[in-house]
């Protein structure tokens, strides 16, 4: 049974956006140059830390689990430490196009599963960053990817931001993404809350990272209502944006919303599980429903 608890976490680190050159050094740096310098600084801090972590690993070797986890923590920590500088830049130049890039970068690192605050540090810039996003950039056509990204997170700032975008953004594609993201966020947050309720250690970690008061409010929320709203948002996304709005990855809104709706209607607590049919490790075909009459624990696992 231990294997279940020691399971790996799939986490996409997206550093690919971050290769930038610092501009010319003559005269005061433009906002764009300052932004590039900050991004470069983040990257080199992370690279240096990663190099340090990998030093003890022989070429072609594999990093032990705990060290790999520490590396993920390090990524969060260096991002969180850089974030206030990016927010400061956005605050100084609210009308410069780079302001939104800086804010996006500042909140891009979404702590999807709660890495403890001792490991990843706090994320002090988040509230201010979302305050500025809502004040200065709520109508931007570039908000889609950010909406999608934060839908995997838990932070208190995400929900009001997504609601604002959905209500106020003039671009249909962005509203569509906000609609999908809000549905996903509401459903996901309820599920994460289940982890919190069952485990005091995780409850502590969530409270450290996201605030005791917020957690308490969620504990008292009406779960059924949250699920109903998520479902209504997906139905609305299909109706308003369904076939004609294409998302950046090429899928239509309907293609995105349908599996999510399936999830809410068939994969939620209280629903009869869909059957699974396939082959086991010996190539023998079997079905999940063969085990009707027994309590079944389904463990989706992957190779570490």
């Amino acid at each position, binding site marked *: 049974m231990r*294997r279940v608890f020691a399971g790996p976490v799939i986490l996409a680190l997206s550093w690919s956006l971050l290769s930038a050159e610092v501009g010319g050094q003559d005269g005061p740096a433009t906002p764009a140059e300052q932004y590039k310098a900050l991004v470069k600084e983040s990257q080199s801090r992370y690279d240096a830390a990663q190099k340090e972590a990998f030093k003890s690993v022989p070429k072609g070797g594999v990093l032990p689990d705990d060290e790999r986890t520490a590396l993920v923590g390090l990524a969060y920590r260096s991002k969180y430490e850089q974030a206030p500088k990016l927010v400061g830049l956005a605050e100084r130049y609210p009308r410069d196009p780079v302001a939104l890039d800086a804010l996006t970068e500042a909140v891009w690192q979404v702590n999807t599963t709660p890495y403890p605050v001792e490991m990843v540090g706090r994320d002090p810039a988040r509230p201010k960053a979302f305050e500025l996003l809502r004040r200065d950039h709520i109508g931007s056509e570039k908000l889609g990817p950010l909406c999608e990204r934060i839908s995997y997170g838990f932070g208190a700032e995400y929900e009001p931001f997504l609601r604002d975008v959905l209500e106020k953004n003039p671009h249909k594609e962005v509203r569509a993404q906000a609609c999908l993201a809000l549905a996903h966020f509401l459903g996901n947050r309820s*599920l*994460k809350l289940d*982890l919190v309720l069952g485990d005091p250690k995780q409850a502590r970690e969530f409270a450290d990272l996201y605030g005791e008061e917020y957690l308490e409010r969620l504990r008292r929320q009406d779960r059924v209502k949250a699920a109903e709203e998520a479902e209504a948002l997906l139905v609305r996304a299909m109706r308003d944006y369904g076939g004609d709005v294409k998302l950046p990855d090429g899928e239509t809104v309907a293609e995105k919303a349908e599996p999510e709706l399936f999830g809410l209607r068939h994969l939620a*607590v209280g629903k009869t599980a869909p059957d*699974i049919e396939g082959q*086991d490790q010996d190539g023998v075909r079997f079905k999940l429903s063969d085990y009707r*009459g027994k*309590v079944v624990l389904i463990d989706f696992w992957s190779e570490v």
Partner: protein
Amino acid sequence: MQTLKDRPFALIGVNVGGNAKNLKDVMTKEDVTWRTFADMGDAGQGAIAARWNLTSTPTLYVLDARGVIRHKWLGAPGAEALDAALETLIREAEADSEKAPK
């Protein structure tokens, strides 16, 4: 798990993003001893994971004896939470089967 051996309980794995050909090797390496669906998919997601909207592993579901989802965890729940959930449902199943005509 030993204590659950003679009770109405089954642990079923779904191997995500693997390759069925070497699944047995992977299971030995990962110390997975329970029956597991091979969910093939080179791009990291097979048909089962796709249908079940899988976003990360581990993801756990607990079904009662009627096949109704009673718990769902996107991540590892604490051992106590998991044990308590299983114990409650297994007792429920045992009580039901006693009530049923033989």
